[in-house]
């Protein structure tokens, strides 16, 4: 699923470091990945647990 991550390079072919577009692409990815690498807030995991449990309850009742 996450393999697409490496597929594109800012939508352009690899370019040399001095290329302004390459610099922008690099900064953008660095920024995005710094957020992506943060630990997921516990609230999301709790929420999914709750949704899962609620669903299970409904199904048992049916």
């Amino acid at each position, binding site marked *: 699923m996450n393999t697409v991550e490496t597929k594109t390079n800012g939508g352009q072919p690899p370019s040399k470091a001095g290329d302004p577009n390459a610099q922008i692409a690099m900064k953008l990815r660095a920024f995005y990945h710094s957020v992506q690498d943060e630990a997921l807030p516990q609230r999301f995991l709790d929420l999914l647990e709750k949704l*899962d449990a609620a669903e299970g309850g409904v199904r048992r009742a049916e």
Partner: protein
Amino acid sequence: MDQEQTTFKRELLAVLPSLRAFAISLIGRHDQADDLVQDTIMKAWAKQEQFEMGTNMKAWLFTILRNELYSKLRKRGREVQDSDGIFTENLAQHPSQYGSLDMQDFKKALEKLPDEQREAIILVGASGFSYEEAAEICGCALGTIKSRVNRARQRLQELLQISGEGDYGPDSVSAPITSRAFVS
């Protein structure tokens, strides 16, 4: 059924870090972005029957998040005349969120882009979508996405004053072109 449910949850979890990064890149604030991600999870969960296993869960979730965001913004626009809007500059509230000064400058520049240019360059340049997928997520034509990405790149170069010359010395091929673009 239970098996399918588990797969759905597992795939959703796998996409969450990227989905959250998309939200934070769009909005610039962790708290509001996390609220948006939470709404997106609930929407997606409620609509999971509509999702076809094996198709692109990531694109599906990004589309839901984007729709949530813009419907929120539309509501907000009707209520207040955006003095504390979702897209106003919020960097000051998170001065140490991002390590380097360089990163903070970049984030600030990103926030200055028009919404549609920002989302286009994030989807294609960071989230790993093709132009085609990004066009689908944004509900617009392929050519529109391409031109938004190009304009976003140019604008970011201007804002960050990246010309290829400053940091790396003049580049005989691109310098004349890029410097001409900045003379406006």
